[in-house]
C-alpha cells in the first residue's frame, strides 16, 4: 500500500532563516505531488503541484519554492522565511493516471518567530 511521509513534524524558525520541508511517497510510481498550506482556521491553499521530476507548477506568488529531485520526493523551500509563512504545510499525492484522488501526509507545523 502507499504511504506518504513528511518531516519534520514541527519546526520553529526565526524570520529570515531558510526552510526545507520534505515529502516522500512510498508504494507508487510517477505520482502527482502537491504542497498545500493551511492557515489557522482556514481551508487549504494549493501552493505547488508536480506531475513529474523537475516539473513544478506554482499556484500563488509567494516566498516559497518547490523542487522534485526524485520521482517520489517533493521539497518545499524558502531562502528567507517571513512571519506570514507560519502555518500547517501538507503534502499530498495522487496516482497521476486520471484517477486523481489526493491522499494527504501528516503535515508539518511551521512557526516563524
Amino acid at each position, binding site marked *: 500500500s502507499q504511504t506518504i511521509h513528511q518531516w519534520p513534524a514541527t519546526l520553529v524558525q526565526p524570520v529570515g532563516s531558510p526552510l526545507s520541508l520534505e515529502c516522500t511517497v512510498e508504494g507508487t510510481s510517477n505520482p502527482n505531488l502537491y504542497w498545500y498550506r493551511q492557515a489557522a482556521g482556514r*481551508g487549504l491553499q494549493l501552493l505547488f*503541484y508536480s506531475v513529474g521530476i523537475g516539473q513544478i507548477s506554482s*499556484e500563488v506568488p509567494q516566498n516559497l519554492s518547490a523542487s522534485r529531485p526524485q520521482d517520489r520526493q517533493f521539497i518545499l523551500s524558502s531562502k528567507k522565511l517571513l512571519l506570514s509563512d507560519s502555518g500547517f504545510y501538507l503534502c499530498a499525492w495522487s496516482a497521476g493516471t486520471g484517477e*486523481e484522488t489526493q*491522499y*494527504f*501526509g501528516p503535515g508539518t507545523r511551521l512557526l516563524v518567530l
Partner: protein
Amino acid sequence: AQSVTQPDIHITVSEGASLELRCNYSYGATPYLFWYVQSPGQGLQLLLKYFSGDTLVQGIKGFEAEFKRSQSSFNLRKPSVHWSDAAEYFCAVGRYKLSFGAGTTVTVRA
C-alpha cells in the same frame, strides 16, 4: 473558476443524533467532489468521493454524501454520530487542482 462554500463554520451535535454538513460548489464541468476529515494537528483523511454514477455515495466511518447537480451541492450526512466524529470536515472540488472550503468544525456533546 472553481470554488467551494461550506456555510456552517461550526456545528454542535449530540452523540447519537444525525449530522448533515453542507457544501456548495462552483465548477465549469462535471465536478469531482470530495469530503475529507481532519483531526487536530493531523493530515486530511478521505471520507468519500464522487466522480460520476450513483449520486448517493457511501464512504468510510458510516458517512454518505449526495450529489445534487441542480443545487450545486454535495452534502455530507451521518445517521448517528459518535464522539470520535468530532473533527473538522472539508469539502473539495476539482480534478488535478483541488479547491477546498473553509471547513466545518463538528463538536459532539455527550
